[in-house]
């Protein structure tokens, strides 16, 4: 078995552990910040990737397609507007209607799409499937679930899922993690989504079966509109609004700004977490390295007595500080990864940490640079002392 103590400069084991704790704190806080950033960025990419359209009115759907019923005739009118490349009618429903109005950032959604129509969102042309397959033309009674949705219910391709009382769907695919909204989606064929909607909404059933003149094709909570290459999406959204009456049209740029405003609290929180991580990790690391150097002041006094110059001593201490900082940094990263993985594996499907390569590289770089600065500061303090004074202070 490898004796770790032999791999480190002798006497530095506790220094390395001290640095590891500081770096682990920095990495863990940073990973939580990264996770929230990815979630917000994912939402932003989504709204900037399509023009979301719903029917006029207060809304029967949810999410990005909230608004009135969007009839098939309206979808055809939208498709004729110059600059529109494709229109995909959708049904988006909350999985649990009683909580959907409150938990808007993390709510689970049922999304009905027509696999025959290409996904209209430029940023999410294809959703990556981890297990099984995506929806195919002609599918009925099947569902593809997001990664968090699957994890919280221990679902795999081949399993079964009850999306409404008495209506069981076969799970044909599980999506890869996107770290944003689709992680909590249950995606079903459009016709199945329409059935689920009708089961849930008695008022809609009366309208549908009465004299409203509605067909199944009119049952859309909204549509995603794709634009042709080179078209300004905001300008196109305004053109659709002007040319097709009776629509709620979201302007991608405005929606993105709205989203940013509504997540301003999280952005501030992220900034706070980042600053806190840097302060805690930085103080812990620099204090540990400085204390470790001062702890060996007697040794450096002896070395000065043996002829070590300022430069030789600085190089020697910096070399040791570098070794110790890298060891502590790697150990801290490993510690944070282990704790983060354990926490994220607790089974409720929520991923709290995102250990991005840029975060890990930053943490290691931070440890090395700060360790070097702390060691330099301590060395400059020590070389100002006479060798005899350094030996006395270290005695």
């Amino acid at each position, binding site marked *: 078995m490898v004796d770790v103590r032999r791999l480190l*400069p002798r006497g530095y084991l506790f220094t390395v552990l001290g640095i590891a704790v500081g770096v682990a704190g920095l990495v863990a806080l940073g990973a939580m910040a990264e996770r929230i950033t990815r979630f917000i960025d994912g939402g932003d990419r989504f709204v900037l990737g399509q023009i979301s359209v719903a029917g006029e009115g207060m809304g029967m759907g949810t999410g990005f397609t909230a608004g009135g019923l969007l009839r098939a005739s309206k979808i055809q009118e939208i498709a004729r507007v110059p600059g529109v490349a494709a229109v995909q009618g959708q049904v988006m429903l909350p999985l649990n209607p009683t909580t959907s109005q409150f938990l808007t950032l993390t709510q689970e959604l049922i999304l009905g799409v027509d696999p025959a129509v290409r996904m209209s969102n430029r940023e999410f042309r294809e959703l990556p499937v981890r297990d099984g397959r995506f929806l195919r033309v002609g599918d009925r009674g099947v569902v593809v679930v997001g990664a968090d949705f699957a994890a919280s219910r221990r679902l795999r391709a081949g399993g079964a899922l009850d999306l409404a009382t008495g209506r069981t769907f076969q799970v044909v695919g599980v999506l890869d993690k996107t770290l944003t909204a689709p992680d909590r989606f249950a995606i079903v064929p459009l016709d199945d989504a329409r059935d689920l909607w009708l089961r849930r909404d008695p008022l809609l059933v009366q309208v549908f079966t009465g004299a409203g003149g509605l067909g199944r094709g009119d049952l859309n909570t909204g549509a995603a509109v794709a634009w042709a290459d080179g078209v300004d999406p905001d300008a196109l959204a305004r053109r659709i609004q002007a040319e097709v009456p009776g629509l709620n049209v979201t302007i991608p740029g405005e929606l993105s700004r709205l989203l940013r405003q509504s997540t301003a609290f999280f952005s501030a929180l992220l900034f706070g977490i980042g600053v806190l991580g840097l302060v805690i990790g930085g103080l812990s690391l620099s204090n540990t390295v400085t204390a470790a150097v001062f702890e060996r002041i007697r040794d450096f006094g002896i*070395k*000065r*007595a*043996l*002829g*070590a*110059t300022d*430069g030789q001593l600085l190089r020697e201490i910096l070399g040791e500080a570098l070794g110790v900082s890298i060891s502590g940094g790697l150990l801290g990263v490993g510690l944070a990864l282990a704790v983060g993985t354990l926490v994220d594996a607790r089974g409720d499907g929520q991923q709290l940490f995102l250990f991005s390569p840029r975060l890990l590289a930053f943490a290691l770089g931070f440890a090395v640079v700060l360790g070097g600065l702390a060691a330099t500061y301590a060395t400059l303090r020590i070389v100002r002392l*006479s060798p005899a004074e350094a030996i006395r202070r270290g005695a």
Partner: protein
Amino acid sequence: MLVRAHGLSKTFRGPDGSPVPVLHGVDVDVKAGECVAVAGPSGCGKSTLLNLLGLLEPLDAGEIWLDDVCVSRLSRGAQCRVRGRSIGYIFQSFLLIAGLTALENVLLAARYVGRPRPEALAEARRLMDRLGVVHRADHYPAQLSGGEQQRVAYCRAVLNAPPLVLADEPTGNLDDGHAAVILAELRALCRERGTSVILVTHRADAAARADRVLRLREGRLESQGGDGHS
């Protein structure tokens, strides 16, 4: 004449910041190959004198010359080089570095003067063999007895064959047997290599074997002559 020191004075600061004078205008001359003992009651300034002569402590007043160079006026870097090449130290409490083995401690003296490692390694092993500690080369100081530690410290002090060796109570923590070994080596150093040795000691037998004994009292030189053996 190897060492000439004139008017050496040193004052420390007490806990309340008040001045505590330790040495007052001390003059010391030591010839090449001479063994000089420094004696006197505790607190009379013996160790401070040795620290000043070894450039381990800055002077308040006076000058120190090694051969033709006024080393007390040199820059900090130049004084480091003088310490590495021209002066060897042996301390009462050995002052070995705990994180290094006995051999690494000895070799430390060669590191800072840029001496080739193979040559230094061979010399270190030869010295350790002569002092009877070569079998302890890979042991850490905590694994050595006091006598062994002081013999390792002696090897480190003389590895670069410095013309001046300063020994501050080198036998203070040793039994008579180990003390005799160290004192015999210091005498041999003067005789065989022409090294100058300045030895702070309380032991009458050690002072008696020196060429001269400097007697300090309350920071002043009381006598500097010839009551040791030649």
